């Protein structure tokens, strides 16, 4: 073992891409003893110490006045387990809390849990088969009842009860929840589970009060009055709610953390559009915070220049990317287009796919269209940083694309369009109606034109494109086009669910009503195999390496072309101190928001 590799490993521990345990294991394999390895870490300053993932909360007292928040999509329901879409999840989160939430650096932050389970504190079993959560003591529901392990056990029962129809049911399959005592709960998994922090964590994990929902744990779940008048444990309690319009809340005087919450009241106003929301904060300062500003950066910068507010950019795993169809959208097999029994006549040639990747000018798209809201990326899996592949490159080179196509035998024919064996390089490129996307489409179209590829642009209104309507031919999951572009969201700090988008059993087809997540319909045996391996791999370093390999396989095939990362962009007034996270709801730590005097 050379000094260089050792330094490299220590560097990775410091950057967070290698866990301390992983380090000790590796170094031990190389002949160093474990205590020596931890010593090494302590000496170089990579020891646990103060890994502060959440900014310090400064206010010494309450009474901070009103907090006004603007959501340009209004919420309609306040039951977190029925929430479809971020707005309802966020609004519910004002009142309800999970055992733990995800901080923006991808680490867990305890909320209703007394501590985060780990092998060291006995919370995690070394075989990956169970997690024991210790609950915080002295927490009360807004109606004065005590919060206990019964509520946690009930939440799991409620969510996975098919008669309830909860949207979070997926997080509670294949596990068993046991009450150990009034303040301890154990989650037992059927299989070794490296990613154990799904149930009771973050958006899918908010705990609901058993004493109010017990009578609605069945087909009558939608009739519960608490669906619209929530009673939670959160820092703010319910005042009034007009679905599709305004939600009002006031400070919870019995909150379980000292000096919190800071604000007396919270108002969440819904409606409008992203640009006017940005104006309402940055230009006119009518509101304190505006959510999800999908606005061209040029506009945000000019609004920011007025000096009243600032734009918050939180980097997560969302990525805007192009898919090149593996199947033929123009051939019907038993009434199904883009059927997996077909092959795309042009994209089955790797040379065409490589040329397409060379024709996407990511630097310009990032610089001139998305700005701070979209750094260019060669990778599909970008965050957390330990999963980011160093092996992929991005290049924009029309001349090389031409050269590759020439060499592969695609000759220019009528109108300068390349063709080979009767197949013309003429593609339909679809995306949703959205100004930056239409700009991107035009930039790609022009570059393709210079390489003898004709692209017909198609736009579909977003509510259709992203719907799961089985009857509509224009949804992105049907993919009845040669190419398409959209953003895929990464909702957890672990890439397992994100990377299942390319496994063969997730292929979107009529058989599964186009609900499969593999929309590009790509199949690769190696990918399937290492995905299965990663599902059961408990060593975090090896697991990260498997996900990096998956990223390299799919990106290297050029069937998908990543364009830009899409961090979460929001606006707040200069004196507001929001605590945001890319891996959890906007409201995940509303208790810690405050305003500087």
């Amino acid at each position, binding site marked *: 073992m050379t000094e260089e590799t050792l330094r490299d490993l220590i560097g990775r521990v410091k950057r967070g891409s290698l866990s301390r345990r992983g380090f000790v294991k590796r170094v031990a394999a190389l002949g160093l003893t474990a205590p020596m390895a931890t010593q090494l870490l302590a000496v170089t300053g990579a020891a646990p110490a103060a890994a502060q993932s959440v900014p310090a909360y400064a206010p010494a007292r309450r009474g901070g006045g009103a907090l006004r928040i603007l959501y340009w999509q209004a919420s309609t329901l306040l039951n977190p387990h029925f929430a479809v879409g971020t707005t309802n999840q966020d609004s519910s989160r004002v009142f309800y809390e999970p055992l733990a939430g995800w901080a923006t650096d991808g680490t867990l932050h305890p909320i209703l849990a007394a501590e985060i389970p780990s092998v060291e504190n006995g919370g995690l079993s070394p075989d990956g088969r169970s997690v024991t959560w210790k609950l915080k003591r002295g927490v009360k529901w807004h109606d004065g009842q005590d919060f206990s392990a019964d509520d946690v056990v009930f939440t799991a029962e409620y969510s996975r009860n098919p008669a309830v129809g909860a949207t979070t049911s997926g997080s509670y399959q294949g596990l068993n929840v046991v009450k150990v005592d009034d303040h301890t709960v154990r989650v037992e998994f059927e299989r070794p589970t490296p990613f154990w922090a799904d149930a009771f964590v973050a958006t899918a994990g908010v705990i609901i009060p058993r004493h109010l929902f017990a009578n609605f744990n069945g087909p009558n779940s939608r009739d519960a009055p608490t669906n619209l008048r929530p009673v939670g444990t959160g820092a703010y309690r319910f005042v009034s709610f007009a679905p599709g319009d305004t939600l009002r809340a006031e400070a919870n005087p019995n909150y379980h953390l000292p000096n919190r919450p800071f604000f007396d009241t919270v108002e969440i106003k819904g409606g409008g559009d992203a640009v006017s929301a940005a104006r309402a904060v940055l230009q006119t300062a009518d509101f304190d915070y505006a959510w999800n500003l999908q606005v061209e950066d040029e506009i945000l910068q000019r609004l920011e220049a007025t000096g009243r507010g600032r734009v918050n950019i939180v980097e997560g795993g969302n990525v805007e990317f192009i898919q090149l169809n593996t199947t033929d959208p123009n051939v019907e097999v038993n009434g199904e287009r883009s059927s997996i029994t077909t092959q795309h006549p042009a994209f089955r040639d790797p040379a065409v796919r490589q040329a397409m990747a060379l024709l996407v000018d990511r630097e310009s798209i990032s610089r001139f269209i998305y700005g701070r809201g979209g750094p260019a990326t060669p990778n599909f899996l970008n965050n957390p940083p330990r999963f980011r592949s160093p092996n992929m490159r991005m290049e924009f080179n029309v001349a090389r694309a031409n050269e590759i196509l020439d060499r592969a035998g695609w000759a220019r024919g009528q109108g300068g369009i390349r063709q080979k064996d009767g197949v013309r390089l003429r593609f339909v490129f679809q995306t949703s109606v959205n100004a930056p996307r*239409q700009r991107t489409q035009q930039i790609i*179209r022009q570059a393709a034109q210079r390489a003898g590829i004709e692209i*017909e642009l198609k736009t579909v209104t977003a509510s259709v494109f992203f719907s799961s309507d089985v009857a509509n031919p224009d949804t992105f999951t049907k993919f009845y086009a040669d190419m398409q572009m959209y953003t895929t969201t990464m909702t957890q700090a672990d890439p397992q669910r994100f990377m299942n988008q390319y496994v063969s059993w997730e292929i979107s087809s009529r058989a599964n009503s186009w609900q499969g997540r593999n929309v590009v319909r790509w199949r690769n045996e190696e990918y399937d195999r290492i995905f299965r391996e990663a599902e059961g791999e408990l060593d975090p370093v090896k697991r990260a390496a498997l996900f990096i390999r998956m990223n390299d396989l799919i990106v290297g095939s050029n069937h998908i072309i990543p364009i830009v990362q899409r961090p979460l962009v929001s606006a707040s007034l200069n004196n507001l101190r929001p605590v945001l996270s890319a891996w959890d709801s906007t409201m995940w730590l509303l208790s810690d928001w405050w305003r500087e005097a």
Partner: protein
Amino acid sequence: MVSLCVLGFLVLAVLIGPLVWTVPIDEIDFSKRLQGPSWEHPLGTDDLGQDLLARILYGGRISLAVGFAAMAVAILVGVIVGAIAGMAGGRVDAALMWLTDLFLSLPELPLLLLIIYLFRDSLVGIVGPEMGVFILIVLIIGGFRWMPVARLVRAQFFSLREKEFVEAARALGATRTRLVMVHILPNSLGPVLVAATIDIAAAIIAESTLSFLGLGFPPDIPTWGRLLFDAKDNLDFAPHWAIFPGLAIFLTVLSINFVGDGLRDAFDPRRVK
């Protein structure tokens, strides 16, 4: 007269303009983005550095063609339906007015979505994306704007056919066709022409609504409505981008309205000279 000149100028400009001003409409140049008017780009550039003059000229062809063609469809259908109803009366009239009411009560947007969903692909396959969408839009916009015209014509017919000069013509033995073509129709055209001019404007705007929903022309075809739509978010720091297409729509609609007024005066047989 002035408005006729302005309209003529606009039509000529979009017809001949692209031959004279040969800057390509889709040349992307990031070093020249969002520039104001200059000699190189007389109307400035948009956020991709594309020349706005070239885009407005090109888009004008489409917008004007859509406007006029849709207006022609609406007027033709409206006048025929209105005239038949107005002359025939009785059951035919009642049936035709039911039809008109039916069309008026149809929700326009869902139907549009349905029609485009059903026919877009097949039509695009036959005549290409640009022409296919053009035909669809013209038929749809025209097909949904004829009802007011039909009612207008019918009402005019009802009042005119009882007028003394029509009575006189009938007494002189004029046939029904001659009554309609020579005496009643010309006299009823005044309001129709005004309605027609409003229809052109409505058609131009309807086209931009469709583009807005992603159902109109492909996004790289710069119709005036699409230019305005793209420009709206940049209004406060790149006003030229929205002003010029907006001005083009404004001038077109205004001059067409004035021309309509003038035509009505010219056609009005009862006008005292």
